[in-house]
């Protein structure tokens, strides 16, 4: 579904991402791991159009994504969350999720301006759907709380709900477990797995939490200094000598 073909991103003399080739199939939970500064977030920014690749191509179902604007890429069905929450701080959790529906919410502007009842009913239906979505993520009681007043874990789940509300084909999660306690992480894992199973969304999970990635993902790619050093099933990754050297080795010795 999403393919990166020999994608390179250079900042001056530094290769943030070098000759990266990835193929994320439909309905797959795909993990992208690597030490700090390995280029994981850069890879996400390249896919979502926040940065343009220096070389190489990125496509979604054969349609080129590179050189497109972020909002066009989002409209094609790519949603994401961010390392530090980027909720709209002064909106409620519910309003955040409703904004997430922007691409599909076609309530007519003229109808809304005139206060035409069907248009108002449409807007109300969006809010109902947003409330259901928050309920599924266990946030019913926080739906009307202002986003910036939410706890960090709640903010992450609202951000997830907002991304799901966009009905994406592929969802990019940038370290969703950072700052969560083990119980919250467990719950997040179940939610992500459910996303793939029940909604058929492809997920690219960028994560530091090895346990989470190993237990949740079907396939994993490992980045080190911007280059892919390994790709395979969790078992293959766990036993790959290059990965152990670059990443796991440090963890094991600690």
């Amino acid at each position: 579904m999403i393919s990166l073909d020999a994608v390179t991103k250079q900042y001056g003399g530094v290769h943030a991402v070098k000759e990266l080739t990835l193929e994320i199939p439909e309905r797959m939970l795909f993990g992208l791991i690597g030490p700090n500064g390995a280029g994981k977030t850069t890879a996400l920014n390249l896919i979502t159009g926040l940065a343009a690749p220096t070389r190489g191509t990125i496509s979604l179902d054969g349609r080129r994504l590179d050189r497109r604007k972020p909002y066009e890429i989002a409209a094609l069905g790519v949603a994401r969350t961010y390392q530090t929450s980027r909720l709209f701080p002064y909106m409620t959790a519910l309003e955040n999720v409703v904004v997430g529906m922007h691409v599909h919410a076609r309530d007519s502007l003229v109808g809304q301006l005139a206060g035409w009842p069907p248009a108002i009913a449409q807007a109300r239906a969006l809010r109902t759907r947003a409330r259901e979505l928050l309920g599924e993520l266990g946030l019913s009681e926080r739906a009307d709380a202002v986003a910036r007043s939410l706890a960090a874990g709640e903010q992450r789940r609202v951000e997830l709900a907002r991304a799901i509300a966009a009905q994406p084909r592929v969802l990019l999660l940038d370290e969703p477990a950072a700052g969560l306690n083990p119980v919250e992480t467990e719950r997040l894992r179940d939610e992500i797995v459910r996303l793939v199973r029940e909604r058929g969304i492809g997920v690219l999970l960028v994560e530091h939490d090895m346990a989470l990635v190993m237990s949740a993902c079907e396939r994993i790619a490992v980045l080190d200094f911007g280059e892919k050093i390994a790709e395979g099933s969790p078992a293959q990754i766990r036993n790959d000598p290059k990965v152990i050297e670059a990443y796991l080795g440090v963890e094991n010795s600690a």
Partner: protein
Amino acid sequence: MHELVAAYHAHSALLNEIGINALLALSVWVTLACGQLSLGNMGFMAIAAYASVLLVTRGHWPFFGAALTGAAMAAAAGLLLGWPVLRLRGVFLAIATIGFGEIVRIFAINLPFTGGAEGIAGIPQLVTTAIIYSSLALIAFLLWRLTRSRAGRAFAAIAQDEVAASGLGINPAAYKLAAFAIGAFIAGYAGALAAFSSFFISPSDYSFGRAVDVLAFAVAGGIGSVAGPIAGAALLTLLPEWLRFLQNYRDVVNGAILLLVIIFLPQGVWSIVRRRSAR
């Protein structure tokens, strides 16, 4: 009843000024709602005022046709200005739009058909208090509905986090341009109303100082809702009248009150009313 009629006749000019200032405050509010600080509204006001006055006095157009045409010209100017300055943010955008306002004012002084620094006199009094307030009611209603619509949600999203907004499929440039054009249209329409409720217009009516006053209306009233800028315009237009007895110290007290509002009521004066009604 007679007292009311007498009071209306004594104060109708002030009443009209409040209504027009409220429209101007709404015009700057629209761009603020989309996260843009634009101070070019006097330029839009001037374009529509001169255009509508010339259309009526020389072209013998009916008032509403001339006012709406003038406002449409202001909106077109808003699009033309919005396109190149869209990349600018915050204070840089504010400076660019101030520049636009000054350019329009200098054109008004120097063009052959705008009457120079003395302006145009003898404008027929075609605008009544009723016209001003029904226009205000209609525009405020439409803006209130806008805040509830998909476009209004996109405006708020762009204002609060542009990157996150574009990550959800919202095209920031398109909505910012729309906000610019809507703001310019409202400022222009207010300019036409103002021109036809006074006897003359001159370039000094569209000074930078007035643009700042209008921004103060919106900020003091509160930019969280449509009612805020209207309340702010009413308060800050009436305040100098109430403070008349202070004579030369009037502006000082006026400024002090504005500062107090910003410090103690950062959500604007209207937030008091909202808090009361929420209880």
